């Protein structure tokens, strides 16, 4: 009997757990370790952040779901890995610290035969002084509870605007190295939409502030789509959406400090600026969760298994090269770690070989470029591929049997621009592949037939459908495994 430990129960971790439970659960041991008691459909947090959904509509209790399965759920956070075991035992193990009430602080070593690292990111608010809801002056929609708090503040400002006060809203990214512009992009349009619904839009100035070189970059170096007889860059469409809604934008910005009502940022020429605000939602940069790795003798070998940003090294080509020499082949395919063949890292937890957008530095040497997105659909695709490989390796395969390179997979992104069943809209974007492959698609790096975008009510229905489908699937209700991931 093999023992498979999955660290993290987000989109990638929970997807891997569902399939491994289905394929191996009866005869093998599957343990899921997550510090959070609840699963969260993160793409819908933006609706919690404007009061269109409640926290309960986007989360559910993990223990309750796993109770129906063969999965052994431990509410704990992983601290370190011992992939070679210790001086007492050759068996690899992961050290965890429980976060569940009654066992909080208790430390345990959990042995494994296969380990899937799907810990997701640490929301690194500390990278920018004054950023974030806990110790700073900005709100966030990265977790359901953050989004709830964002909505409380937003509603307060709506009340003030109804009383005749003017307000400035600043939404975007809170550091030069942020990813996940899509979440901020959705949030700014939903704030705009809710202010219009409440009849106070004329009292608000809304400003987009981001680290993208141009609007529509989204950490993927932007996309080109065919529209109106032209191949056009997403920059054109993103700017059009902003102008249509009276939203101003500031790009190429690294937020260096946030004070009450003031965002300090610098741009590419190194000049410093201040943007005043009454309400601000800025996405933090992501880092790895800070797992340590020790060898058999107890020596710290973290630098061998993790990149300096805390993400796990997998089967990517990490050789530093200039942008012009980047290749689709640099990107990992199996997500197996090179040194330990029984460890995999998926979702945000794996270290990308390099950015997708072109690296840029300002005159002060500060990097101002979006980092690669690896959430949502790509996360789930990696999870399914790794679950299949682990299943096959447990059954005797020597190597991983399935691949899911971001340079060979597509992604669909449905970005809400206003929630309403009859007059809501969303931007529906499909991109293939996520990482451009200029050898295969020399003009734009992507398949122009599968790379598309449009705005409309159908997108809102789609986002709503995805919300209900994925929560149904994640709850492992009848027929979940025939639904697409």
């Amino acid at each position, binding site marked *: 009997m093999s023992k498979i430990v999955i660290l993290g129960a987000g989109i990638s971790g929970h997807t891997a757990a569902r399939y491994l439970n289905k394929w191996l659960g009866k005869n093998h041991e599957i343990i899921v370790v997550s510090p959070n008691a609840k699963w969260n459909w993160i793409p819908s947090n933006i609706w919690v952040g404007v009061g269109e959904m409640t926290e309960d509509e986007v989360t559910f209790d993990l223990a309750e779901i796993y109770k129906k399965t063969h999965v052994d759920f431990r509410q704990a956070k992983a601290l370190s890995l011992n992939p070679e075991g210790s001086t007492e035992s050759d068996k690899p193990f992961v050290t965890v610290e429980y976060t569940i009430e009654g066992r909080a602080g208790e430390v345990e070593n959990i042995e494994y035969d296969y380990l899937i690292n799907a810990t997701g990111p640490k929301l690194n608010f500390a990278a920018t002084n004054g950023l974030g809801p806990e110790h700073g002056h900005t709100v966030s929609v990265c977790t359901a509870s953050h989004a709830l708090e964002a909505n409380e503040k937003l509603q307060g400002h709506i009340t003030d605007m109804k009383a005749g006060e003017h307000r400035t809203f600043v939404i975007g990214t809170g550091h030069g190295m942020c990813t996940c512009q899509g979440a901020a992009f959705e949030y700014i349009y939903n704030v705009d939409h809710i202010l219009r619904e409440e009849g106070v839009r004329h009292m608000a100035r809304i400003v987009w502030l981001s680290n993208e070189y141009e609007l529509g970059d989204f950490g993927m170096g932007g996309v080109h789509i065919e529209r109106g007889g032209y191949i056009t860059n997403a920059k054109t469409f993103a700017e*059009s959406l902003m102008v249509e809604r009276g939203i101003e934008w500031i790009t190429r910005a690294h937020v260096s400090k946030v004070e009450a009502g003031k965002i300090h940022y610098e741009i590419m020429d190194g000049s410093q600026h201040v943007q005043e605000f009454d309400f601000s939602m800025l996405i933090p940069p992501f880092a790895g969760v800070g797992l340590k790795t020790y060898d058999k003798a107890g020596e710290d070998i973290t630098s061998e298994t993790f990149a300096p940003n805390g993400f796990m090294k997998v089967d990517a080509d990490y050789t530093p090269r200039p942008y012009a020499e980047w290749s689709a082949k640099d990107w990992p395919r199996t997500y197996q770690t090179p040194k330990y063949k029984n460890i995999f890292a998926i979702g945000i937890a794996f270290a990308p070989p390099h950015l997708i957008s072109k690296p840029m530095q300002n005159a002060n040497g500060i990097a101002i470029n979006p980092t690669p997105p690896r959430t949502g659909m790509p996360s789930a695709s990696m999870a399914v591929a790794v679950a299949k490989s682990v299943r096959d390796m447990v059954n005797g395969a020597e190597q991983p049997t399935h691949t*899911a390179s971001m340079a060979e997979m597509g992604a669909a992104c449905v970005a809400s621009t206003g929630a309403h069943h009859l007059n809501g*809209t969303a931007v529906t974007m499909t991109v293939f592949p996520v990482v451009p492959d200029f050898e295969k698609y020399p003009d734009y790096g992507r398949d122009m037939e599968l790379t598309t975008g449009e705005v*409309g009510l159908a997108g809102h*229905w789609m986002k709503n459908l995805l919300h209900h489908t994925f929560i149904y699937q994640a709850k492992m209700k009848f027929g979940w495994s025939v639904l697409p991931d």
Partner: protein
Amino acid sequence: MAVKPTNKEPYQQAYYPPTPTGWTRYMRTFLPWQAFRFLVINFKMLKLMSKSHH
């Protein structure tokens, strides 16, 4: 008294991007068209997914 219209300020951020015509905006929420687009989007996503699995 009516406010005298002023010239639209050029060389500003909002001056250059394309803006949708009334027809484009209308079609974005016109139910029969959007019902059709919904089917098209579903088809595209399924095609994308079928090409993504290895």
